[in-house]
Structure formats: structure tokens, C-alpha cells
């Protein structure tokens, strides 16, 4: 019998590619870009007909993460509007209280955040990877992992003519439901409490109407995050301006949403009718409705980032940072994906693509914002999604504002302490709890 050829021998020796990257979202394209630049052979497998076609976010991309990766990225990125005004709104059914920040500095390069839609942004980023030499297979699902006799991951099966793609490393950038991470035993099959459901409506409005209503002009845009709009279900809402559409949506904790038996569309409908939101949306028409999960558990729910022949980046590794006024995932996906690609390059160079050969990836992320922020804010999701913050504080703060702003003549003005005590009592919060939560908040965010 002839010697087995390299092609039939199992194991990484027979790899056609240095890396298969599953998913052409921000994590996958960044990983492929890093690998292609390093001269490694890399193929991206994307199940949608084009990158971004399956992806949904709020959305604002915080682009500074791109500075080091794509010089002058803002010159050709498909931006809708540059965010120059950021607002956090706390609301009850009939009240709202906002902290509103605006600065012209965010309206010039290198900018702070941009609204963009994923069909265009993800396509743009994937093109950076293919221009650098990565291959992109769209309309192809990675249906499972290939392993060698030792259980090491050596590639993926696909549904494109049942083709198998063999590689030294598989970088699973397959997003929040990551079935590859589940198959590898890195993520639990289903753990609803770590996830929120995001639903979003994109509404058409003429560009000048958006400019006028939101007080912006040209390419300026607005980002409003909202607390207290989810009928007590842990979560929040958002309203973002695009060029000639606005995105309005809510996120809601999965187990609580299910238990409350409230349809997610009802939560959006509530928000759209709120007296502080409705005037922005008057006369708009529905362009698209979409839904997607978010991994909101944070640092403590992150899976191991690598196993033999495989690593995770972006949402497959639960890297979205969701902590109150922050809902950031795209920047975390890009940074982790790029770092994963660089780690694969080093591992391939050293000839060790086992978990220990890939361990430099985690070490790298621990030096970057990706794991530094997550570690520091590890207790933030629990605080932000806690009963008091979700169900009592928005109303309490609104009543506090009402107490301070309402002119009660001929009665004299009440003191701040009395207003606070009354508002707290009305919402069933003890001053002691308020002080404790403030301290807790300062410890987590300070």
C-alpha cells in the first residue's frame, strides 16, 4: 500500500489553511485581517449571503479601536452619522429625566462614535480582510467541528457541497449563539440568564426632520440610552439617529421576559408612545424590524478563550460590555478578533497550536481594554439589572427632579433631603439602600 498522502492524513499536518475563521462579523473580519497581513492562509466562512446580513445591533460603533488597525479608517467607513450628543434617559410611564452631553469634539476626526448599519459596516470590514488576502466564502454554514484522534480541532464541516475545511486553527467568531463553542464544550448549550433579547425597529424619516428634531446638522448624530422603559423587566431601551432613519429598540433579560409573558414588540410600542420619545418619531414609517440576542453576563460568564486548535473571539466569547450607559460589542469584537488572529500567527510560527500555544491570546487581551474593562466592570451587569436600579430608581429619580423643579407656591420650597426622603419612600427604597447602592456604583464604575 502506498504511503498515505498528506491530504488523507488526519491532524494539523494536512491543513489546507493556517486558519478557518467562522463568521464574517467584526470579530471574524478583524481576525482574518490580522492573519492575512501576517501572510497566513485564511478563509472566512459566513452563513449569510453577504457580511452583516444576519447581524443586528443598536447601533453605534466606537471606532477608536480601528485607529491602530486601519489608518484613517474614518475616510472610507460607511458612516451614517457621527455621534456628537449622548444622552441617558430615565423614565416612568409619564416622566423622564435626562443627562445630556454634547460636544463638537466628537464631530471631527478621529471621532468618538458613529451610527452605521451592519449590512454596510460588516461588508466594509470584511473587504479590508479580503483586500489583504483573506478568502471569504459567503452563503456557507460551518455545521460542525472536525477533530483528530486526540480530540484536537482541525477544521470545520460546511454545508457547501458538504465540503470540509481543514486548518491549523479554527477561530470561532460565530456570534452569540456560537454552536461551535457549544460543540467544543466551551459554552453551555443554553443558559438564558446570561442573555438579553434585543429588538429594534428602523423607522424612516426625512434627513432634515431628523436634523431638526434632534438638534443636529450635517453628519452629526445622537445616541439616547434609556432606563425604565421595560415594564420592570431587566433591560433598557435606545434611540439612535442614522442618516434618514432612526433606530428605536429595547433589550430585555430573556428569563424575565419569558416569565413576564410580555411580547417584545409591546415593549417597543410602549417606548415609541412615551411622551419624551413620540415627538421624535412622529410621521415615521417602519423600514425594518429585527431581533438578536446579546451576551450580557460579562466577565464572570466568559468561556475559556482557547482549546486545542480553536479559539473564540467577540460575542462567541461573551465579550459584549453591557453596563448601564454602555452597550459596546463591536469594538470588543474587533479588538479580540484582531488579537486572536495575531495569536494564531504566533502559534503557527512556533508550531504549537494547542491551547497552550494559543494562550498568548488571553494574555494579550488582559493588557488591552477588552479584558481590563470587563474585569473592572464584572459586577456592573448585576447592579444595572438589579431590581432597584431597574424598577425603583428611574421613578425615584424622576420624582426627585419633580420635587426639586415643581414650584409649590404659596407653600415654601421643600428641602432637598425631604424631597429625597419622600421620593425614596414612595418607591419603597430606604435611604440606607440608596446610600449602599450609590457606594456600590462608585466602587464598580469609579
Amino acid at each position: 500500500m502506498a504511503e498515505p498522502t498528506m491530504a488523507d492524513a488526519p491532524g494539523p499536518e494536512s491543513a489546507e489553511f493556517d486558519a478557518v475563521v467562522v463568521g464574517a462579523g467584526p470579530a471574524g473580519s478583524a481576525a482574518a485581517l490580522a492573519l492575512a497581513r501576517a501572510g497566513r492562509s485564511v478563509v472566512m466562512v459566513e452563513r449569510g449571503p453577504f457580511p452583516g446580513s444576519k447581524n443586528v445591533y443598536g447601533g453605534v460603533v466606537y471606532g477608536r479601536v480601528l485607529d491602530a488597525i486601519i489608518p484613517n479608517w474614518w475616510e472610507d467607513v460607511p458612516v451614517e452619522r457621527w455621534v456628537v450628543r449622548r444622552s441617558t434617559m430615565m423614565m416612568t410611564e409619564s416622566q423622564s429625566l435626562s443627562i445630556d452631553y454634547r460636544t463638537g469634539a466628537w464631530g471631527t476626526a478621529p471621532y468618538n462614535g458613529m451610527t452605521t448599519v451592519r449590512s454596510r459596516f460588516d461588508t466594509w470590514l470584511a473587504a479590508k480582510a479580503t483586500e489583504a488576502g483573506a478568502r471569504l466564502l459567503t452563503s456557507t454554514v460551518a455545521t460542525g467541528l472536525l477533530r483528530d484522534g486526540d480530540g484536537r480541532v482541525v477544521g470545520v464541516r460546511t454545508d457547501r457541497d458538504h465540503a470540509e475545511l481543514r486548518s491549523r486553527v479554527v477561530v470561532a467568531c460565530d456570534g452569540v449563539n456560537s454552536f461551535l463553542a457549544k460543540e467544543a464544550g466551551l459554552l453551555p448549550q443554553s443558559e438564558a440568564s446570561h442573555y438579553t433579547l434585543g429588538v429594534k425597529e428602523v423607522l424612516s424619516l426625512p434627513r432634515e426632520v431628523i436634523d431638526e428634531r434632534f438638534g443636529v446638522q450635517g453628519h452629526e448624530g445622537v445616541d439616547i440610552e434609556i432606563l425604565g422603559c421595560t415594564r420592570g423587566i431587566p433591560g433598557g431601551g435606545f434611540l439612535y439617529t442614522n442618516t434618514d432613519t432612526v433606530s428605536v429598540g429595547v433589550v430585555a433579560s430573556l428569563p424575565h421576559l419569558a416569565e413576564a409573558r410580555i411580547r417584545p414588540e409591546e415593549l417597543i410600542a410602549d417606548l415609541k408612545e412615551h411622551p419624551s420619545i413620540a415627538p421624535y418619531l412622529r410621521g415615521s414609517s417602519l423600514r425594518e424590524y429585527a431581533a438578536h440576542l446579546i451576551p450580557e453576563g460579562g466577565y464572570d460568564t466568559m468561556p475559556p478563550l482557547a482549546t486545542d486548535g480553536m479559539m473564540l473571539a467577540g460575542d462567541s466569547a461573551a465579550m459584549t460590555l453591557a453596563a448601564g450607559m454602555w452597550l459596546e460589542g463591536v469594538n470588543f469584537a474587533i479588538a479580540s478578533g484582531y488579537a486572536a488572529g495575531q495569536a494564531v500567527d504566533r502559534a503557527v510560527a512556533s508550531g504549537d497550536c494547542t491551547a497552550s500555544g494559543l494562550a498568548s491570546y488571553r494574555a494579550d487581551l488582559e493588557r488591552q481594554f477588552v479584558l481590563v474593562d470587563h474585569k473592572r466592570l464584572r459586577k456592573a451587569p448585576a447592579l444595572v439589572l438589579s431590581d432597584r436600579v431597574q424598577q425603583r430608581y428611574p421613578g425615584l429619580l424622576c420624582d426627585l427632579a419633580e420635587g426639586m423643579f415643581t414650584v409649590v407656591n404659596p407653600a415654601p420650597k421643600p428641602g432637598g433631603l425631604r424631597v429625597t426622603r419622600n421620593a425614596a419612600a414612595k418607591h419603597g427604597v430606604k435611604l440606607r439602600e440608596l446610600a449602599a447602592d450609590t457606594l456600590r456604583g462608585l466602587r464598580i464604575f469609579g
Partner: protein
Amino acid sequence: MATVDFRVGARAHITVDSEVCRSCTTSACVTACPANLFAPTSDGGILFNYEECFECGTCYMVCNSEGAITWTYPDGGQGVVFHHG
């Protein structure tokens, strides 16, 4: 959902075993599915249609009965296409 682009494949990428649903105490899928695809039937089962699914994963995450939902992605290129995601 007239405003969403669905490229419906021939294969049902999600199937629901209505037998299992009959003994379900929560029917969590019915209200949580953002596409409203789970319809309770008079005999306590579930009628499901995969065609206008967002592929979000909510249903298998909130379902409390092992084996009720078989969940896969649609074949490559098929299913929902978001243009403003």
C-alpha cells in the same frame, strides 16, 4: 413581516415537537419569540412555522423542555437578510 427580507429555504431549520409541548407548563416561546411564530393549539400543543424567523435563538434559550425544539441555522444564504441591522 412585510418589512423584512426573508429568503425562505425548503428545509425547516427549526422544528417543534408538539407532543413535548403538551406537557409544557410555561409556553415561554409563545410570547418571547420576537417574530411571533409559536401558536398554541386547542389541544395544548404548538403550531410552528419557520419561514419568517429572525434566527435569534430566543426560543431554544427560554424553552424549558428538553427535546421540544430542534434548532439549526438555515442553509447557507437562506433565511432572514437584514439590511438595516
